[in-house]
């Protein structure tokens, strides 16, 4: 089963579609979670997911905005979609019947 960050990365890559590459995925994750995403976490997770066959990466084109440096483009594979779906289903199933709003009043921090 996927880890939480692995799921976030796959979901961000799927949302970005053809424009999924390192910096864009990082921005997407930071924008949606409101948490910092470090370069180390991003690139080591990309490698791990690629090794598992859940996504593919290749070097894309260079842009002046990046100082003429190439992008590491990302595409989620069918196996990756399957793994993300399984993770999402598990989270949905385990959350069924749980009301976080109601728990706020019961559990004190």
């Amino acid at each position: 089963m996927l880890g939480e960050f692995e799921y976030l990365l796959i979901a961000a890559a799927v949302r970005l579609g053809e424009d999924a590459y390192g910096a864009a995925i990082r921005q997407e994750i930071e924008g949606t979670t409101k948490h910092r995403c470090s370069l180390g976490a991003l690139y080591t997770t990309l490698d791990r997911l690629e090794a598992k066959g859940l996504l593919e990466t290749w070097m894309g084109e260079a842009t002046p905005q990046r100082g003429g440096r190439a992008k590491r483009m990302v595409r989620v594979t069918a196996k990756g979609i399957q793994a993300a779906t399984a993770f999402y289903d598990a989270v949905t199933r385990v959350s069924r019947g749980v009301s976080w709003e109601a728990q706020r009043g019961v559990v004190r921090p």
Partner: protein
Amino acid sequence: MTRVSWWLVNVLSQTLEPGERDAVCGDIAESGESGGQALRDLLGLVVRRQAGLWKDWRPWLALVIVPFGMWLSLRSVSLGRSYDLNLWIIGNYRAIDPVILRDTGLSVLNGVASLVFRSLLLVGSAWSIGFVLGSLSRRTIPINGTLFCLTLLVGEFVGIPKHHFYVNGAVYSLTLYSVLLPLILLSVLVLLPSLWGMQQGARPSTPPILRTLSWLAAALTFGAAVPAIGFVVLVAAAIWRRGRGETPQFN
């Protein structure tokens, strides 16, 4: 980001694979984050990458070779003493009584020939050890190479004449003989050849014949160094025991 920050980012990113370096530096440029933040981010990635490389056995084996730098340093210091003597003989040749030279068996020709031979041997040993270190380390060479250079310095510090050689105390009270010459010899005969060897060893394109010959030379070097290091350890242990009032034992 300032130019200094970019320079640091470029230096730090040299430890990454070329493709990844390009992508990461591009991401940093695109994100527009501050120099400090970019450096922290990059450092995090470099540490993770380096840690990942240490899952392999080769960098650990290279780590075993690192202390041989101490042996090279001590060899360089020992050679430095011969340099001192021969330089002095060359410098004062006219003033020395030829009878003394004849009786002691000292001659400029023999002295220079011996120095050249021993220097070449030391350069070869340093290059071989550097080559093996580079071959085994490759991408962990920033860590193993730095540790190796540190052991060279430690060996130099331990072995320099002002600490252990009191026979020619007057000569070694001069900075030239006690500090400068040993450092110059260490740099020229050990540091530069070993760095060159590391670079050659880490290069995958080194021809197989050169690689085989280098490993052979390295095996001979280690064959010579291991008994010498063993002897140094035994002597050090004996001195330590003697300092504690115990009887030295060599068996």
